[in-house]
């Protein structure tokens, strides 16, 4: 399930991957809600035709599939045909998470009708990928820390890093006083790409020729960013430990 702030976060991630880190647009799969730019509480396309609040320009994001397990598996099937031993895969999930507290979760809440994409299903789906060089996962939904160790176990990558906005029993939050953004996801992506949503260069990594943040450094930055929710409880896991030194691109 996604609200406008989650789509805003996906737009930021998309722009960062393509425009800052050099990913080809055909290598980026974007899955959201019903496969459109709508969010789950927007009954028509009106909001989707608005402007992105980062820099007040039109959305550039191309949604390629619905935000469901079927959509994710379809995207992974396309990726699996190309993924080789020297390749890197980056996955960013955002939106709503649920946790019944029965030891079987947490879950992603997905399209349609707030269905559950269970942690075990997610892990089984990424475990079916061919072996690859590195997997970096950023999860922004509530309770996402519960995915960390199972994703490490499931990953077929030589190096795996996963950062989550919240612990297994805790929610994740929007930025204080600005519901246009999820706090941890925005700060993590800004650090990775070197630029914030408004295009202003990051104080440490922005600008031409600057060394990019590693995923470990991006995590540290997102935990301590000057504008962030103090109530997130970010966690990460890495295998091997040196996976914190991965960069994207």
């Amino acid at each position: 399930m996604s609200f406008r702030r989650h789509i805003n976060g996906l737009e930021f991630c998309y722009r960062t991957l393509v425009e800052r880190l050099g990913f080809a647009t055909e290598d980026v799969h974007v899955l959201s809600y019903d496969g459109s730019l709508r969010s789950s509480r927007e009954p028509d396309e009106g909001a989707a035709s608005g402007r992105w609040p980062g820099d007040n320009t039109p959305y550039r994001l191309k949604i390629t599939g619905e935000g469901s397990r079927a959509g994710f598996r379809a995207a992974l099937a396309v990726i699996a045909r190309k993924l080789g031993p020297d390749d890197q895969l980056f996955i960013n999930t955002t939106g709503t998470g649920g946790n019944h507290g029965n030891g079987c979760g947490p879950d992603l809440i997905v399209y349609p009708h707030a269905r559950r994409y269970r942690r075990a299903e997610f892990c089984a789906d990424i475990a079916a990928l061919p072996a690859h060089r590195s997997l970096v996962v950023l999860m922004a939904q509530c309770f996402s820390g519960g995915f960390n160790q199972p994703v490490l176990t499931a990953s077929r990558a030589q190096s795996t890093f996963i950062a989550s906005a919240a612990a297994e029993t805790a929610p994740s939050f929007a930025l204080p006083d600005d519901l246009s953004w999820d706090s941890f996801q925005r700060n993590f992506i800004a650090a990775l790409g070197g630029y914030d949503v408004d295009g202003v260069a990051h104080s440490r990594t922005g600008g031409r020729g600057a060394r990019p943040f590693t995923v470990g450094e991006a995590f540290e930055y997102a935990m301590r960013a000057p504008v962030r929710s103090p109530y997130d409880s970010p966690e990460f896991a890495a295998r091997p430990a040196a996976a914190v030194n991965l960069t994207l691109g």
Partner: protein
Amino acid sequence: MNQLADNDWARRWNLVRADTNLRKDVLHKGAGSVLELKFDANIESFVPVGDIPPAFLNATLKPRGRVAPDLESIGLHPLPTYSSEHEPHYVKVLDDFLIPYLQADLLNGDLQRLEAVIRIQCGWPKAGSRLAQLNPDLHFVNVDARIYQFKNGMRQSDSATSGNSTLLVIWAPDAPRQPVNSDGSAMGVS
């Protein structure tokens, strides 16, 4: 479909299960609690009375909708009397039937319900962690809650011949104007 009357809501509800994010505040010490509702004609709403679960302190529950929800319409039989051994069944019913049914009604639907803003605790960094040191204070967040009842929704015992009770479903769906990204539910009976 019969409409629900005020006295269908104004009663004692035994709350028996809740998701992780609601458990501390809906169930006292995680074990169970009583939500007793009384109708206040002055505000045409229900208010909790008695030993109020923390989530419902100062809450006002406003009646909404015209169509009484029922389990049969989504292919469900009454649930067994809740116990921990039935938790997997309850979770499956929630995930595969009840939440999709309620979600489908969320935008423009007309299911009878009570609507309230409840208060839940958030932000529990692991004790002793760096985050817990940075942010030791408890944080509370207001979330929208929608409360539905299903007549004959729970069997009074596991005996097939016993009567049925009314099932209460408290759903706190993720909402655009909330700063938090969680979906949670709790259930009770009367």
